[in-house]
């Protein structure tokens, strides 16, 4: 609360700049200043690259990436209603703002992904797909590309039996020029049981195939969130909070210290809905 009160005092000055605004608009304007309005602003506040009014600090400016500035901004970048531990947050901020080894976000180089919850029309029904988007260097600049997809109709379509009772193609089939395939595929809903143990269906390819065949039509985006996987040994999730008050906009909704590579791999599998 003390942090918010301090911020409101600072914002009060800027709100007075507004001309011809009604009183309720002035109150709203203070909240809008406080809101983290763009992902870009999240990056800048996280890194300490802008002033209270949102004007950019550049390399060489006295306050650019100032650790004091960052210690002021970073605690305000959490969703206050998420209920994450205050101690964990403090550890996170302390590590990021360490004077010798500070950690900053890098738009182009960091391991981060956008999870886009989108609606499609598929076989006469509205269905949700999660598109995982990544930035990729291309030509003279960058582009967002679809890295993977989670799509429920595909997930339930593949059910691989890996038990000892599973159907198989016997090991002397080669002597028969694999005539055993005829029986294997006859009336078989699950031909995936004839694939190696390591087989994983490539949902993105299937998704694009259905789209190219005209079976899958984009309707709309419902919401977006972001996952930052390894920022100085931390994972965090970024989500948009559209609500009254000062703790709004793009905020950290989930925070976790990564202990080792195995935990990071498990976390990625979870985020990509591969568990």
């Amino acid at each position: 609360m003390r942090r918010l009160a301090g911020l409101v005092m600072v914002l009060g000055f800027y709100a007075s700049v507004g001309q011809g605004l009604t009183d309720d608009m002035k109150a709203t304007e203070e909240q809008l200043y406080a809101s983290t309005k763009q992902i870009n602003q999240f990056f800048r506040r996280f890194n300490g690259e802008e002033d209270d009014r949102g004007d950019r600090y550049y390399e060489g400016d006295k306050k650019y990436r100032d650790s004091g500035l960052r210690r002021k901004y970073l605690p305000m970048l959490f969703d206050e209603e998420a209920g994450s531990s205050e101690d964990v947050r403090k550890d996170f901020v302390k590590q990021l703002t360490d004077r010798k080894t500070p950690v900053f976000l890098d738009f182009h180089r960091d391991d981060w992904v956008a999870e886009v919850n989108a609606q499609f029309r598929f076989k006469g029904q509205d269905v949700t797909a999660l598109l995982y988007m990544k930035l990729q260097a291309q030509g003279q600049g960058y582009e967002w590309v679809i890295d993977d997809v989670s799509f429920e109709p595909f997930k339930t379509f593949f059910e691989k039996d890996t038990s000892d009772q599973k159907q198989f193609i016997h090991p002397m089939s080669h002597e028969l020029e694999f005539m055993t395939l005829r029986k294997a595929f006859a009336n078989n809903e699950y031909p995936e049981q004839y694939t190696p143990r390591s087989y994983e269906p490539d949902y993105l390819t299937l998704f694009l195939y259905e789209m190219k065949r005209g079976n899958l039509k984009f309707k709309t985006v419902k919401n977006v969130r972001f996952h930052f996987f390894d920022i100085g040994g931390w994972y965090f999730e970024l989500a948009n909070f559209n609500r009254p008050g000062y703790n709004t906009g793009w905020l950290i909704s989930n925070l976790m210290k990564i202990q080792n590579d195995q935990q990071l791999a498990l976390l990625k599998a979870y985020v990509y809905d591969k568990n």
Partner: protein
Amino acid sequence: MNYMKHILVAVTLLMGVSAFAQTNVDPRRKQAIDSLALEKVKDLSKYISIIGDKQTQFSEAQRVMDRAEELFAPDSEMGVSSLSREEISYYKVREYFERLMALNYDKVTIKWYDIHYISDLERQPDGTYVGVITIYQRFEGTSDDGMSYKDTTKKDITIYVKKKETQIAGRTIEFWDVLLGDVRVTETSA
């Protein structure tokens, strides 16, 4: 008149062409581009207020819509959602203005908060720079029977910064111009 104003601001960017053609935008150049982009966004804000105003004559509204459309790159769209309707509706820019003009209120007041947030410029694969400017609009519509509606909407406006050429006194001069692109309109709870 606006066109001339934009040309004048654009010409001020001429000196930095070589620096700007590199991957990172020089901060001073970026500030000049921001000013130009903000001019266009302010023009758009002004045009929207005029188009929405019920006192505006039909012919005048049509003329302002033409001017407003000129600010945008071809095929730009407005993606609109509200607190009560999560799904985004997509409109061509002209269609959005026409719907605004046709709103069924007797009095409409559109005001703009004194907030604008300008993102960094990122280069896309074809070399064009792209950024986003965020502004906030206050809408109030009232009917003669006393019914009224108010909302605050956030408008995230794409800006494209492109290198162009023009002839001045027989010489080919390169300059950087700004066009607006797709706009995401969301109702805020604030």
